């Protein structure tokens, strides 16, 4: 029993970061599952993070309430970004979103009254693992419902073949706009979760490292089902800690190699609904269907 308590005490932070990264990865998944490869999540996270930090600093809000504000702020930012970005062709959008990550850092550095500028901001409250878990459970439920509703079905169609989807009366713009809103809200919450877990945020908190973590978690875990990004986030968070324990000398190299091997062996990620469907295709019995 004591071993379990010790284990929990030691690795609760790893679990907390796994939960935090799950939000970030789900935000990335939200747009990816509608056919948009975008790094804008980093900006939404920055908006959410600094909004939450300011709200907590000024009004001493409990973390979960601050998460709500962060989600709304992220959603609003996403609406603005979506209007600009959805005019772009896919490949340009990927590049533009990467540029937005770089711009975000410059903006954060140059608005010290909002973000603390080069000094960063202290966040006086720490979110508990239980609160993070609850918030993620609610978010995951939202994704579960989306997956099994008309939105989930048509967003998959848009992702696989947007022009075919459009000739079936599906507005790709509308679907991807909704995807951006969800990405913004979840990304904002993720940014707030990161802020209240680190308790210190600065321009570098929301920069390229986060972009890479997010996209790697999502694709590693599997970008064809909402559960994939969560699995990927935990794997990608635990990887450095594990590698440090196993191969401290070359931990980063080992981390890269593991990522490489998984991607080459399982390019669709660890969680792949297609495998299940293939198995169902072969079995004669009819299978479960998404319900309403």
């Amino acid at each position, binding site marked *: 029993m004591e*071993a379990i308590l*010790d*284990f929990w*005490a*030691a*690795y*609760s*932070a*790893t679990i907390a*970061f796994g939960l935090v990264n799950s939000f970030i990865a789900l935000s990335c998944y939200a747009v990816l599952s509608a056919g948009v490869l975008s790094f804008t999540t980093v900006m939404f996270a920055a908006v959410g993070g600094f909004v939450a930090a300011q709200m907590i600093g000024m009004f001493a809000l409990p973390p979960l309430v601050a998460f709500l504000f962060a989600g709304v702020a992220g959603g609003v930012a996403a609406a603005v970004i979506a209007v600009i970005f959805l005019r772009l062709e896919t490949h340009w959008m990927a590049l533009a979103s990467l540029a937005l990550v770089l711009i975000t850092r410059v903006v954060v*550095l140059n608005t010290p009254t909002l973000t603390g500028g*080069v*000094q*960063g901001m*202290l966040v006086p409250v*720490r979110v508990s693992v239980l609160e993070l878990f609850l918030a993620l459970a609610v978010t995951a439920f939202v994704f579960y419902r989306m997956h099994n509703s008309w939105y989930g079905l048509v967003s998959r169609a848009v992702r696989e073949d947007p022009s075919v989807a459009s000739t079936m009366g599906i507005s790709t713009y509308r679907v991807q706009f909704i995807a951006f809103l969800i990405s913004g809200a979840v990304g904002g919450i993720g940014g707030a979760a*990161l802020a209240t*877990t*680190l*308790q*210190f945020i*600065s*321009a*570098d*908190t929301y920069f390229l*490292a986060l972009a890479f973590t997010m996209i790697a978690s999502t694709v590693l875990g599997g970008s064809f089902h909402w559960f994939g990004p969560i699995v990927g986030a935990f794997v990608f968070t635990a990887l*450095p*800690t*594990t590698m*440090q*324990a196993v191969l*401290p000398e070359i*931990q*980063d190299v080992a981390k890269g190699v593991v990522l490489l091997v998984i991607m080459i062996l399982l390019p669709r990620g660890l969680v792949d609904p297609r495998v299940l469907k293939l198995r169902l295709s072969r079995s004669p019995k009819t299978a479960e269907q998404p319900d309403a």
Partner: protein
Amino acid sequence: MIMKTGTMRLGAALAAAAFSLAGSAWADPAPGQYNIGIISDDTGPLAAAGISYHRGADLAIEEINANGFAGEGVTLNLLVKDSATDAARAVQAMTQFAADRTVLATTCCIITPIAGALSPIAMNNNLPLVIYGATREGLPQEPYVTSVVALPGPQEVMMSERLASELKPKRVAYYTTGDNDIFLARAHAVKAVFEEAGAETVAEISTLANDTDFTGPATQGMGTNPDVIMVMTTQQPAVGIISALRQRGYEGLIGTSEVISPPAIYQKSGDLIEGIPFALSFQPGLSDSPEATTFIEAYQAKYNELPDVYSAQGYTAIHYIAQGMKAIDGEPTREKLAEEMWKITSIDHNLYGGQEIVNGQAQIPETLIVNWNSDGEVALWENQ
């Protein structure tokens, strides 16, 4: 089905492995042995300095154990977790140390954001944390968070006062790192000294910590025709700016900070940084206290190179903890250790010929104004 059992077995094995890892880290230490956790920067963007801090800490541990500096029959053991200067990884490492009841104290942090992120964990877990690199006003918190690095500025101010009085420059240009608050503060302090002495500020040129090309800033600075150029930037930009200025043919005086003091920097830049004054408190060849001599010899013997300011700070941090350990009456606990450390007003074993501590914050030790000479050694700077 086969697949499922396979997955389960794998999961069980992983879980078992994880627990045993956790277990092994918790192996009860020998009687009288206590663990100190270091959250290092052995990899990542600041690894060059990070390795130095870590080596200084390692040497301190050896010295303490060999001489019983932490008390009769008390030995210290350093547990290492690398953060790669990543805040999230540092927080995870700190939480793991906090959970490990054999860890009595921790030391870490080159950059302020990470120090800021770790200090609440230290406070919440009653775990002493000694900061050895990051500086910021108000970072120490009674009684758990302390710092062995003096707040920046005063050393450069001292140096600037001397430069201003000896050289009497008319026109001074300043370079600073616009995205680093510490160096911005240093530049401001230095500028105030020169302006007080009647020197005109001809240029204030801001660069960024990640910049590599300084031809533009160098041309700009030289265009203003300064007598003295003060380079108050982080390490890479400082070396880059000085190189660019010298390559463009600037022959006036350049002053900078201790960032160019590591021997590796001289090895890299050679004659380009010769004769450039900077201020510091520890330097092999000049620091001649018995502690410093022993440390320098041991460092050279072990790592085959000279120590630098960073290794000196890592060394001081561990000795600070050891001094606290020694003062404890009875079985050491985190709380007792923190209490004793907070009471300390002067670190006995230091490399500076005296190191005062006020409320957990180290004060400026003796300051040396030095430069690299043409023999590749650091010598006291003289106005030529």
